[in-house]
Structure formats: C-alpha cells, structure tokens
C-alpha cells in the first residue's frame, strides 16, 4: 500500500512539473494570440489582459489579409517547408539505410562525416552559400531555400534514422531478398513502414526550424515574389513605427500550419519516443 501511495505522490509531482512546463512554454504563444485580437491601445495598456468587448479588435488580421501578398508569403513558406521536408526524409532515409545495411569501405567514416553537420551550424557557411547561389543564378528563388534547408536537415535525419534502421531485423530483410524483392523494394516496402515513428520524429524536428527561419530568406530570397511568411511579417516592423496588431496577427496565423502538421505527425512521434522505452 505504501508503494502505491508513494507512486501516487510521485505521479502528482511529475504532473505538477509537466503542467508548469506546459504553462511556461505556452505562455508566449498565449500572449501573442490574445493580443492579436486587441486594439493597439489595449495591447500597450495591459498586454496580459484578455480581450473584452471594448478592446476586441480584428484590425491586425484585416491589415495582414488586405496586404495582398500575405497569401503568397504563406504559400512560399508552405512550398519551401514541404519540399525540404520531403527531400530530407527521402535522402536522409536512403543514406541511413545504406549506412546501416551495407558493409563498404569507409562506412563509419562516412557516418561520422554526415553526423558532423549536427554540431556545425550551417549559418557559418552563409557567405559561401550566397556566393554559390549567385554563381548558380539561384538567388531569389525558392529552390535556393529548399536546397539549403535540405542540407541543414540531413545530418540529424541520417543520424536518427540510421540508429533506428540498425534495429530493423536482418532476418526480415534477408527474407525479402530470398523472396526476390529488390533492394529498393526492401527499403520502401519493408524498412520504411517499420521506422515510420522515427520518420515522424525527424519530420517534426526538421520542419519547425525551417518554418521559423528568418536568416536564409532574408539573405537568399528577399524578393517580393519569394518572401516567406516570417520575412513577410517583417514589413510590419518598421525602424520607427511597428504595427503590432499586424505583427501579432501574422504570427498567430503562422502558427496554424505548423500546428496542423505537428498534429498529423504527433501520433507517430509519441510512438517513436516511447518505442525505445517500452519493449
């Protein structure tokens, strides 16, 4: 009985810590969302107050949506994120499969090389990347961003996925080989479905920094036609005046797609996180 009571106390303590963390993590988001529907005066008067009938004002959303390009920015962000994500997952999984499955000269050296990118921030290479993009005529294209983000996401993807793929039964792959499946079929039909939780984990960790990035859009693709939403929101932040209503509204809108994608992946993600613990 004392064991039961002790575990009860422990679970209450754990929940208290987790709830506190959730509150701290959600607080900024909460502040952004409530202030995005308040009038400018109310934002400054009491930033933490909930919107009331008097202070409720959708002017920020009107500004943002009236600014015709906003949908385009949105679309640009979507294209860049989805395309980069798809490429990271595809190439990351393929590289991870090769590293975990085949014995070849320099295998572990290659693995180390690919994992090194996790520790070295890609921004250190910004100048060289810009020079390359200029040379390739890719400045102010979404392709430039997709290429950079793919490179940025690959190291972690290869690292996580190759660990998971090592865990896939060799017998299963060998059974496939004996049954006449090609290496591609083994990869796509046997291995990928089994590492789906890991893929979801990688997807979430890859997607969020890409969606939120301001650096590379600013440097590589600042043109009107290729602006992403984070960069697009900057028009409301002036040197002298900032349209806070619009900024907050734009940020609130920008949270939505990530939230949707996260919900799609999260079921798989939770399975991925607990996969190691259970068993």
């Amino acid at each position, binding site marked *: 009985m004392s064991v039961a009571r002790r575990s009860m106390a422990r679970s209450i303590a754990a929940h208290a810590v987790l709830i506190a963390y959730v509150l701290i993590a959600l607080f900024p988001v909460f502040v952004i969302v409530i202030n995005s529907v308040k009038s400018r005066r109310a934002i400054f008067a009491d930033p933490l107050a909930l919107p009331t009938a008097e202070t409720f004002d959708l002017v920020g959303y009107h500004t943002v949506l009236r600014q015709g390009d906003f949908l385009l920015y949105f679309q640009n962000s979507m294209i860049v994120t989805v395309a980069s994500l798809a490429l990271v997952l595809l190439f990351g999984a393929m590289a991870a499969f090769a590293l975990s499955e085949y014995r070849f000269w320099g295998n572990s050296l290659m693995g180390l090389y690919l994992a090194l990118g996790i520790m070295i921030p890609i921004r250190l290479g910004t100048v060289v990347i810009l020079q390359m993009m200029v040379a390739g005529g890719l400045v102010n294209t979404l392709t430039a961003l997709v290429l950079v983000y793919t490179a940025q996401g690959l190291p972690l993807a290869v690292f996580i996925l190759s660990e998971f793929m090592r865990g896939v*039964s060799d*017998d299963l792959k060998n059974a496939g080989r*004996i049954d006449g499946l090609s290496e591609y079929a083994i990869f796509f039909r046997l291995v990928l479905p089994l590492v789906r939780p890991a893929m979801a984990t990688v997807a979430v960790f890859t997607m969020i920094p890409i969606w939120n990035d301001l650096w590379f859009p600013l440097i590589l693709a600042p043109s009107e036609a290729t602006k992403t939403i984070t960069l697009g929101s900057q028009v409301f932040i002036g040197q002298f005046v900032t349209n806070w209503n619009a900024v907050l509204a734009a940020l609130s809108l920008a949270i939505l797609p990530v939230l949707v994608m996260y919900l799609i992946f999260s079921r798989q993600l939770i399975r991925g996180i607990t996969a190691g613990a259970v068993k």
Partner: protein
Amino acid sequence: MDALTLTQVTKKFGRTQVIDGIDLAVAPGEFCVFVGPSGCGKSTLLRMIAGLEDVTSGQIAIGGRQVTDLPPARREIAMVFQSYALYPHLSVRDNMGLALRQAGTPKAEVLASTDRAADMLSLTALLDRRPADLSGGQRQRVAIGRAIVRRPKLFLFDEPLSNLDAALRVATRIEIARLHRELGATMIYVTHDQVEAMTLAHKIVVLRAGRVEQVGAPMDLYNDPDNRFVAGFIGSPAMNFLDAGALGLRSDSLGVRPEHLAISAQGGTIPGRVSHLERLGGETLSYVQTEAHGLLTVRQFGEHDHAVDGPVWLTPDLERAFHFNAEGQRMRA
C-alpha cells in the same frame, strides 16, 4: 547429381577466418543437419549457401548449377529463420504468396499454391490474419509455409525451433520430419540442439571453428566418432573422458559413454563419491567425483538410488570405450 555441393568454401570477416575450407556434398532428398558450438560458423555457412553472404573463396552448386555469384532470389532456395521474419504488414496469405507473385506467377496459381501449403500446415483458418495476431508456433508454421509455397530445390532452416517452448518444439520437429517425408525435398538444417540433430538428420555435419570435424549418419557419429570433439559433442549427457594413463592403458584418454560406466557400492575399478543424483523415472543420472578422472556421469536405466556423498566404485566397459591420442584423434584398434 548432388542437390548441394560445397567446394573449398571459405569466409573471412576482415581478418578473422570464420569458415575454413569446407567441402560437402548433399544428395537429393537428404536431410542434412549442421551442428556445432555457438560461434562455429553454422549460420554463416547457411547464409552463404542462401547467397546472403558472399564467399571469400570456393564454389557453391545447387542441383548441379553453379550459384556462387547468383543473388538469393535466383538460387531456387527457401529459408526459415529463427525469428520467423514474417512481413508484419502483410496477411498470412500474402506472406506466403509474396515470392511467387514477385516471380510473376499467375494469380490463380499463387492462390492454389498457398492454399495447398496452408492445408498441409493446418493454417487455412489463419490465412487472413496478420503475423502480429498469431502465436509463436503459428508464426513459425507460416514461415515454413512460406518456404513450401516456392517449391524450392533446397530448404534452409536456421535454428527454426529455438524460440518455441519445449512442447511446441517437439510438435514442430515432428511436423518438419513429416513435411520432409511428404515433399521429399532436400533440407539443410542448423541447430545446436542434440535431439533435433539426432532425430531429424540423415546426415550430420559437425562443425568446429569453421572446419568440418566429421560428417555421417547420426548413429555412425554416435558409435564411431573420429575424434574427441565429436565424441563429446554428440550424445547427451556427454561422454566421459577418463585419464587412460591412470588406468594403465597406452592411449591418452578413454571415452566412455555414461551408460557404459557400471556403478556399484561393493567394488570396481575407480573409487569415487556421489556428488549429485538426478532421478528422471526412466533413467537415473549419477554424478560421481573421482580422484583420478574428475567428475564422471553415470547413466542407469530405470530407478536407482545412491546415497549422495556415499562412496561408490565405477567400472568402464572397455569393449565399448573409445581411445583417443594426445591430439584428440581416435585410435582405432
């Protein structure tokens, strides 16, 4: 023409020699079992025959055709794994039919083949289930069924029963023996279980450290081992090795099976003390500690009783004992 021929097959992983020049011929319809201690290279050799591991040197022929450089799917073999290795996302029927579909066999034929195999293994009721919804024994039967459906020239089994509990293991062993009789196919079977090897095999290949120690029918190995390793490995409980010098013999060691040691409280050749007794009903095993020969095992049929820690005398049946020289080779009279 042999169903399987290995010619001077070797395998190195980096610098370690895992398979060291193996020659072997298996006749059509034969049931051949590879046994040996853990790590001796049984699985590696089987995987080389399957084409899952390439050979460092040497030749492999299946049904008279050189397959050394062919991929697994083109060797006309089927393999059953210890871990079952069923495709988790496919139904039992699709698991069994995959190889045929992959080879482009017409649908109706695939269906007929899977139904026939399912019937042989009483799997018909399970055909639409996923592997996750089956018990361990059922999964292994599906894995065997998947092998049968392909009608391979050679069946390969890698410790297929090790994950099953004792009762199921006996039942599945009998099932495999029955299938072998019905199909008349050639089978290569890896195990480290004595009983499986002795009961299933026409031919046992005893491996040690990547070399063949002896090849022969189970009873030939039991009654006429070539060396001390085979003598000690085949038979359970294991053979006793007595210090031949202490007995006034000119060989180095004397191998005596537990049933060929007589035990008596009155008198005999070797004095000792009973250290432990195992009474199994059908037989009685006594473990006797001796001064000159260490711990010896005595097997008597039926029920017997000896006081633990009591003094006893053992007498080896010299007529049925084996003599080995210092290198462990058999000295035949």
